């Protein structure tokens, strides 16, 4: 069983300085400024990315859009980065074959080293793009629901007026 040696840190509490209060004050000012500039409802990103929203069950949707979006979500990071080094006739030669295997593996690794750097960057960009697409799709779902609700209200108002 684990044992912990309790040795608490000595904290310094200054009656004239409260960092948490100062930060709260700074955040209030930022919120006020945003309100003045007209973007009070701005929400901070979670940085975790937006997940695939899934096909809606209550409204019509374009199956092609969701098919491609789902596959993009599932595959954007599935990159095969292993070196492909199958045996060939050259690798079967005595002595030279073994040497060629080593040289070939080394060359593949050098190439992969640089390719992977570029690939890491591209995968990160893809992650952001797919997150944006997921979010736009989710917003599109919400807006379609709102449009349907408004249409239905409009129809009932029209019906009430005609009656």
């Amino acid at each position, binding site marked *: 069983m*684990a*044992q*912990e*040696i309790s*040795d608490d*840190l*000595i*904290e*310094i*509490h*200054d009656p*004239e*300085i*409260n*960092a*948490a209060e*100062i*930060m709260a004050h*700074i*955040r209030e*000012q*930022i919120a006020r400024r945003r309100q003045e500039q007209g973007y009070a409802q701005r929400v*901070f990103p979670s940085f975790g990315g937006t997940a695939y929203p899934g096909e809606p069950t209550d409204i019509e949707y374009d199956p092609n859009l969701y098919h491609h979006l789902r596959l993009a979500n599932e595959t954007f*990071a599935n*990159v095969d*980065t292993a070196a492909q080094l199958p045996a060939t006739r050259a690798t079967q030669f005595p002595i030279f074959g073994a040497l060629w295997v080593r040289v070939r593996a*080394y060359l593949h*690794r*050098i190439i*992969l*080293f640089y390719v*992977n*750097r570029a*690939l*890491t960057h591209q*995968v990160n960009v893809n992650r952001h793009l797919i997150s944006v697409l997921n979010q736009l799709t989710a917003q599109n779902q919400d807006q379609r629901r709102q449009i349907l609700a408004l249409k239905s209200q409009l129809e009932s108002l029209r019906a009430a007026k005609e009656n």
Partner: protein
Amino acid sequence: MRLAVIVHRYSDEVAGGAEKLAHGFAQAAAQRGWTIEVWTTCARSHYSWENFFPAGASEINRALVRRFPVTHWDHFHRAQLEFRLTLLGTLPFDEQLAWLETGAHSAPLYRHIRAHASEFDALIVLPYAMPLAHYAVWCAPNRAIVLPCLHDEAYAYLQVTRLLMENARGVIFNSPEERDLALCKLKIQPQRFAVMGAGVELPALDLPRDASRRDLVYVGRLEHGKNTHLLYQYVQRYFEAGGDIRLIVLGDGPVRPPAHPAFEYRGFVSEADKARACADALAICQPSVNESFSFTIMEAWVCQRPVLVHHDCAVTQAQVRRCDGGLWFRDYEEFVGALEWLARNPERAKRMGANGADFVRANFTWDVVLDRFARIFAAWQNSNGAARRA
């Protein structure tokens, strides 16, 4: 007390928290009269792992330093595994072992550990992200005390990290938040654990602060992992919007500041020059979210200046809250808000720095830290004795 400190690099010329912790601990313990040996490699750079220092033993400030050559480092294979780890967030167990194997290793160092570990009361091994530390612990797990310097990053979630920390004799954390990460989030169950921290020292300054300066200072490794690119973006944006600010960058690494009037890059400087730059600064900024202790903020406080830290780093934000020694930010607007508050309130900013200095003096001088280590070690020794009697 007879201790061996095992670390991948050892010199007062290398930047890095774990290296600094190892160096400071060894020097302070040797000054206290403990028998200290440092077992390290001949490397100076953890990018090239070139054997820069000569192999062999030498005495540095009463600590015997034994250097062993790096004999193995599979750069390309390792880069490939690092890439997969970044991409997938984890690795299958066989690839985790390959990740360990492809790191920088020193076979003579491991032979030395196996031959001489029993002559020491404990081996202090750090940090967890270096494969060399893993192999060193596995050479003598019953003697090894790990100072992991753990961050919330992909390496921390690997099974090999769990095995390392659960099989060592004990684990000593740098902060309560690092302990909570290991125990609560990663669910690691060390045999013994404690929180110790590190000692912080900087040369005393003879000249008073130049109060007219509005420099922001960054000290440390210049890497993406330290979030330096974010700081450059914020400072440049603020400067171009008419803000009165300049960022002085001290340290070295691949992510250097852009050639722009908002930045002054000074590179690796002496401790005295670092202290001068910190003392003259409006504040010292630590944007990293990967910290287990942060010497940078402690040194800023030793120089009586406030710090600006990232909201998303549990460790640095908690340290700031413990002493009201600065402010934190989670986006550009908060960064600017905090900066302008410090500039508008120089007396209160000064007081924040003084609070930080009191906090460091109370908790993180080497005398305090070594006393804490001695208490931890004695308690663990007693528990061993009790276990044997039972």
